[in-house]
C-alpha cells in the first residue's frame, strides 16, 4: 500500500509544484495510517535532486531513465503512472495541478477507475475522504468526497507552505512496458522565460489594467515587479488589445492566481477579474477612483494616480531593500 506522486521536472530540475505534491502526499500517507510515499520520475533526471525529495517526505523514487520521456505526451506517460500505481498498490496518486498535472490526472483517473479531485486545497479528512477545492472561479469552496477505492488528487499551487524535514529517498529503476513507440506527440520546441516565476506559481504578483493607458507605460510595472521579485500580470482588456501577452491575463476566463501578495494597479475590480485573484492572501489596490470596486476586495489601498504613486512606491521599496 502506498501513495504515489508524479515528479514534474525540467531537464532534471524538479519543479516547486512537485515539492508541494510530495509534501501533500506525505500528509495523505500519514492520515491513512502511515503508508509509504513513492515518487515517480520519468526521463533524464539527476539522482541527487531525486534523493532530495526525501526531505519533503518521499521514501523512494522510481525512475524510468529513457530519453523518450523528456518531452511531454500525456498518453504514454499516464500509462507508466498507472503501471507504477498498480505495481505499488497505490491507494492515492498525487499530482501538482499545473499544465502537466491537468493533462495527466484525468487520464490516470480513468485508467485506475479512480475518483479525481483537481486543484485540491486541503488534505483529505474523515472516513469519507473529504477534500476541499475552490469552485466558481474563486467565488466559493466545495468539499467533495471520493467514492472509489483508488483516488487521484492534484494539489493547487501555493496552497500549502513547503515543509522540509530530514531524510533522503532511495532511487530505484522502474521497468515499464511503455517506450518511444508509444509517443504520438512530437514536441518541436519549448520556449520558457527563465527570469521570472510562472504566474500560476508566483508568490508575488504585480498586475495592471486599462488605467495605465498604453503599453508604453508598463516600464514602471516591470520595475516594481523586478524590485519585489514578482511576476507581472494584467486584466483581460489589456491582453485583448495586445498591450500584454495573453498568458498574463488573470481572471475568470484567464489564469487563476493564488499569490501571497497581489498588487493591482489601474484595475477597476470587475467581478470576472476578482474571480481570478480572490484566493490571494493579501491584495493591494492602487486606483485613482476611491469608488473602484476593487477596494472592497483589498486589504490595503492607495487612492491616487498610478503615475505618481508607483514611482514613489518603487523608491520606498528600494530603500527598504537596502536597509
Amino acid at each position, binding site marked *: 500500500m502506498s501513495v504515489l506522486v508524479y515528479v514534474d521536472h525540467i531537464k532534471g530540475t524538479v519543479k516547486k509544484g512537485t515539492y508541494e505534491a510530495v509534501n501533500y502526499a506525505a500528509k495523505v500517507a500519514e492520515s491513512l495510517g502511515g503508508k509509504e510515499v513513492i515518487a515517480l520520475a520519468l526521463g533524464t533526471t539527476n539522482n541527487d535532486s531525486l534523493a532530495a525529495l526525501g526531505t519533503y517526505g518521499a521514501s523512494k523514487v522510481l525512475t524510468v531513465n529513457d530519453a523518450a520521456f523528456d518531452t511531454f505526451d500525456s498518453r504514454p506517460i499516464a500509462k507508466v503512472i498507472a503501471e507504477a500505481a498498480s505495481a505499488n498498490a497505490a491507494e492515492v496518486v498525487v499530482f501538482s495541478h499545473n499544465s502537466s498535472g491537468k493533462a495527466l490526472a484525468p487520464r490516470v483517473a480513468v485508467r485506475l477507475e479512480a475518483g479525481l479531485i483537481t486543484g485540491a486545497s486541503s488534505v483529505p479528512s474523515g472516513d469519507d475522504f473529504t477534500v476541499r477545492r475552490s469552485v466558481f472561479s474563486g467565488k466559493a469552496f466545495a468539499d467533495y468526497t471520493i467514492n472509489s477505492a483508488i483516488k487521484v488528487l492534484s494539489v493547487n499551487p501555493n496552497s500549502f507552505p513547503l515543509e522540509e524535514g530530514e531524510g533522503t529517498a532511495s532511487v530505484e529503476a522502474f521497468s515499464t512496458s511503455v517506450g518511444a513507440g508509444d509517443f504520438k506527440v512530437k514536441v518541436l520546441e519549448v520556449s520558457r522565460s527563465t527570469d521570472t516565476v510562472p504566474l500560476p*506559481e508566483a508568490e508575488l504578483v504585480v498586475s495592471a489594467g486599462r488605467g495605465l493607458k498604453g503599453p508604453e507605460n508598463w516600464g514602471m510595472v516591470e520595475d516594481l515587479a523586478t524590485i519585489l521579485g514578482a511576476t507581472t500580470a494584467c486584466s483581460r482588456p489589456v491582453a485583448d488589445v495586445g498591450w500584454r501577452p495573453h498568458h498574463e491575463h488573470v481572471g475568470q476566463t484567464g489564469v487563476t492566481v493564488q499569490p501571497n501578495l497581489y498588487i493591482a494597479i489601474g484595475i477597476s475590480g470587475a467581478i470576472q477579474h476578482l474571480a481570478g485573484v480572490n484566493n490571494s492572501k493579501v491584495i493591494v489596490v492602487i486606483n485613482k477612483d476611491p469608488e473602484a470596486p476593487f477596494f472592497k476586495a483589498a486589504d490595503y489601498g492607495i487612492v491616487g494616480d498610478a503615475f505618481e504613486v508607483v514611482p514613489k512606491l518603487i523608491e520606498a521599496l528600494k530603500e527598504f531593500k537596502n536597509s
Partner: protein
Amino acid sequence: MKLLVCICKTPDTTAKISFTNDNTQFDTNNVSFIMNPTDEWYALVRAIEVKEQLGGTVTVITVGQKDLDQIVRKALAIGADNAVRVNAEPTDAYFVAKQIAAHAQGENYDLIFTGKETIDYNGFMVGGMLAELLDLPFVSLANHMEIEGNTATVSRDIEGGVEKLTVDTPFVVSAQKGMAEQRIPNMRGIMMARRKPLKVVEPVAAASLISTKVYELPPERKSVKLVDPENPAELVRLLHEEAKVI
C-alpha cells in the same frame, strides 16, 4: 474533417453565487446561464474555422437537460452543423466523459475539441478523461493550432512559456485564449440554426466517482486599510511588518 465540440453551460460571469439546502446545492434562482466561454469563444470557433478551411462537419455535443437546448441552438447559430444532447443531469466529470465517449466511439471524429475548463466547477477534467476513454492523444491548453493534411501543429501554454508540437489526427484538444476570436451569431445564422438537426439521446450507464458534500462562501475580507498616496513607505512597512508578505 469530422469535428466534434463539447459544450456546456455555466452561470453568467456576473452571477451572484449562493447555495441552498443546507449549502449542499448551488442556488440557480435568478441565475442566467451562458455557454461556457472557453467552449464558445475558442473551441467552437476554431472548429468552425477548420471546417471552413478544410471542409467537413462540426457536431456539438452536450450532456445536460432540456434547458441546454437554447445554448445548443446558439452554437448552431454560430456555425456548427448539427448537435447531440445527452439527456442527463451531469453528476461529475467522469459521467460526462463516459457519455461523450459513448457517442464518439462509432463516429470516427478526426478531432474532438473541449474548452480548457468550465468556469463554474473549474475541473480541467473532461478533455483528458475523454482522451483516455477513447485512447487518443490529448493536447491540453492549446492557444494556437494549424492543420495540414492530417497533421496538426499546436502551441500550448505551459508554466511560464509555450510548447510547440505536432500530432496526427485523431486527437482531443482543449482550447483556450489565443485559439480563435469570439464570433457573434448573425440573423441568418440564427434562422438557419432552427432547422439544423438536434438529436436527443438517452445516457449510457456510468458511475459517478465523486460527490459534493457541502459548499461554503469565502470569508468576507476585512475592510481595506488606506495608505496616504504621499507616503508609500507606510505601505511597504505594513506589507513587511503586519502582512508579512515581503
